[in-house]
């Protein structure tokens, strides 16, 4: 009797508590500041983009973006907890607030921007979908792929582009679809498929962890546009602004030649626009975002400018060896262009 009563009281109490949690809503920035760290959704291990080392420290291009955001908020690039997310998990994780920001080689599309309830930031990496095959297969063009078995990750733009490309070119194929990228890789390496398709950056990263990278080659065709951008959930404009402007600060820093190493000096020696960006004038750029005035200086100091991030993790001098291409600054014939910070 007593037990039963306790049981029913607790269930009522539990219901009320859940209700209480549901109704309280703070801004994402306040939540993050109260919590003391940023929750960042990343890929579960893509060399160059987000990869944990032996000690569990994450590093990579996507990880650096999280570190930059963390530095802008906390003056501390390490106040981040990383959540590795598969293709199928990632959007639910953002929608439900499990992560504050998704920095995970995610393509910006209309559908995701609207129906999936996401807001995308500045494109951090202009990519496209390609194909990787074995060198001894004798395939030299994606148009030779009629009848091929194609290994791919499920739940990405990849599988849609794939269907469209083979349809348009009147070719047949067999999709072999895995949820996790390492399973795709194992199946391709285990000769299950003739082709591995993914974003070109992803292919370059995965080729590195093959049994013998030199046995594989990437076909010349790029079959889609994949603008990879960080994403946050709908409904918090301030938070969306912060994510956006951290990108602009990183790209702007490269435009102005501000680096991790010279950022402190630039605060006094830089041009007016540089000093304004770094919070060394009496403009209140930080206040408008809800941050401190040196937010950009902190971000740049933590990870360097956009070019430094690129060169450190994915550029020509890294194992990935990806050229700047479309990701060069607009002044160098690329597409990276920072909005003015003023």
């Amino acid at each position, binding site marked *: *009797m007593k037990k*039963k*009563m306790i*049981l*029913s009281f607790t*269930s*009522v109490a*539990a*219901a009320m508590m*859940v*209700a209480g949690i*549901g109704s309280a809503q703070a801004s994402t920035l306040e939540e993050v500041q109260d919590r003391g760290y940023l929750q960042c959704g990343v890929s579960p291990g893509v060399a160059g983009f987000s990869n944990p080392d032996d000690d569990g420290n994450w590093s990579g291009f996507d990880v650096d973006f999280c570190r930059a955001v963390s530095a802008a908020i906390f003056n501390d690039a390490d106040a981040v907890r990383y959540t590795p997310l598969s*293709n*199928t998990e*990632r*959007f*639910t994780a953002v*929608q439900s607030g499990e992560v504050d920001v998704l920095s995970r080689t995610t393509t910006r599309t209309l*559908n*995701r921007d*609207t*129906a*999936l*309830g996401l807001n995308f930031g500045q494109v951090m990496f202009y990519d496209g979908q390609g194909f990787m095959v074995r060198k001894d297969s004798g395939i030299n063009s994606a148009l030779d*792929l*009629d*009848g*091929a*078995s194609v290994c791919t990750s*499920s*739940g*990405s733009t990849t*599988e*849609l582009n*794939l*269907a*469209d490309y*083979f*349809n348009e070119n009147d070719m047949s*194929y*067999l*999709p*072999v*679809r*895995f*949820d*996790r990228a390492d*399973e795709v890789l*194992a*199946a391709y390496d*285990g*000769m*299950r498929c*003739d082709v591995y398709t993914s974003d070109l950056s992803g292919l370059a990263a995965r080729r590195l962890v093959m049994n013998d990278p030199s046995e594989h080659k990437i076909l010349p065709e790029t079959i889609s546009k994949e603008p990879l951008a960080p994403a946050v*959930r*709908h*409904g918090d404009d301030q938070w969306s602004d912060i994510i956006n402007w951290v990108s602009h600060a990183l790209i702007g820093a490269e435009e102005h030649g501000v680096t991790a190493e010279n950022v402190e000096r630039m605060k006094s020696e830089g041009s007016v626009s540089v000093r304004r960006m770094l919070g060394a004038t009496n403009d209140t750029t930080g206040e408008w975002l809800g941050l401190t005035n040196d937010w950009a200086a902190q971000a740049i100091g933590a990870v360097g400018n956009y070019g430094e991030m690129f060169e450190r993790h994915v550029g020509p001098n890294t194992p990935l060896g990806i050229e700047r291409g479309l990701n060069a600054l607009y002044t160098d014939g690329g597409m990276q262009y920072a909005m003015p910070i003023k």
Partner: protein
Amino acid sequence: MSQILKPPRQVFWTRGRIKATLFQAGFIVCLVLLVWFIFSNTLANISNQGIASGFGFLEKRAGFDVALSFIPFTSDSTYARAFWVAVVNTLVLSGLGIVLATILGFSLGLARVSKNWLIARLATVYIETFRNIPLLLQMFFWYFAILRPLPSPRDSVEFGAGFFLNNRGLSMPRPLFETGSSWVFAVLFVGFVFAFYMARRALRIRKETGHGVKVIHWWLLGLVIAPAATWFLVDASMGLSVPVLTGFNFRGGMVVLPEMLAALLALSFYISAAVGEIVRAGIQGVDHGQTEAAEALGHSRKDLMRLIVIPQAMLIIIPPLTTQYLSLAKNTSLAAAIAFPEVISIVAGSTLTQTGQAVETIALAMVFYIAVSLAIAGVMNYLNYRVMRQRV
């Protein structure tokens, strides 16, 4: 001191039944409130963030392809169609798995109680191995055990008669039914029903009179002679689509994908180990007096098993067997990890991410698994009821 002690008046709501009813009603109200709260809160949150909701997406174009489908499907088909493809794939895998696991499991169970030392030990080793390794691991094992050693399509293992085995699967000829074959199938069906009826009749006669009636000729007539005669009568013709190596792979014919093969092997081997133990328990659970009596009556060892022990063992076997079948049907979801296109892979994978409607797609998958589980439980309960009734 002859005063009669009146029991203290009991407050009405503390009386047993009323009290119980009150508590139960209270609990149900709380439960309904909680579910309603979760439901409305989810909907509110979804609409606050401007995320699409509802099942309208089912009518939209899916845009992805599926490796294996028993019903026509292209990337232009709808998400609803993709759902049905996934459902059929899952049901085929579960069905084949249950049949295989049952055959294997019963053989194992019989082997376990065998008087032959070697057979009994082999069965024990098999059971202890397969039921103690996690199913997911077994899936990966079979998948890569099948993939790695097999040659590429160009160097296929050829069995003759159009059968080829390679790391793209098992290619085999596919019969093409042309003119008049529908007649043959119709006659085959009628023949089966007729022979089945005759077999039931024979069983009844034996029960009533004790005289056995031979039925093998009825089966022969129904399944072979009548359809064959129809074949020649209507001059039916049948083509054969033979797999031919073109480019990367075989074209034509049909193919059993390595994903299908690996999933089927893993599921049926894993579940058969459990079924084997259930069958052993069932057999050993039959009173020893029954066996002794049968031996005293001069039954052979075979008849003793077939007529005395197994029918009684079924009483013990069927309820836990149901659990194993349910578990097999639900474990098909693990096949998503080796790229078998079943419900988790297509509905809770591709469809979920392409539409972003996690709540709806997961709900669909849940409804499917509940429906399948209830169906299996229903069939097995009916079977159990039949066996119980026979006993009385």
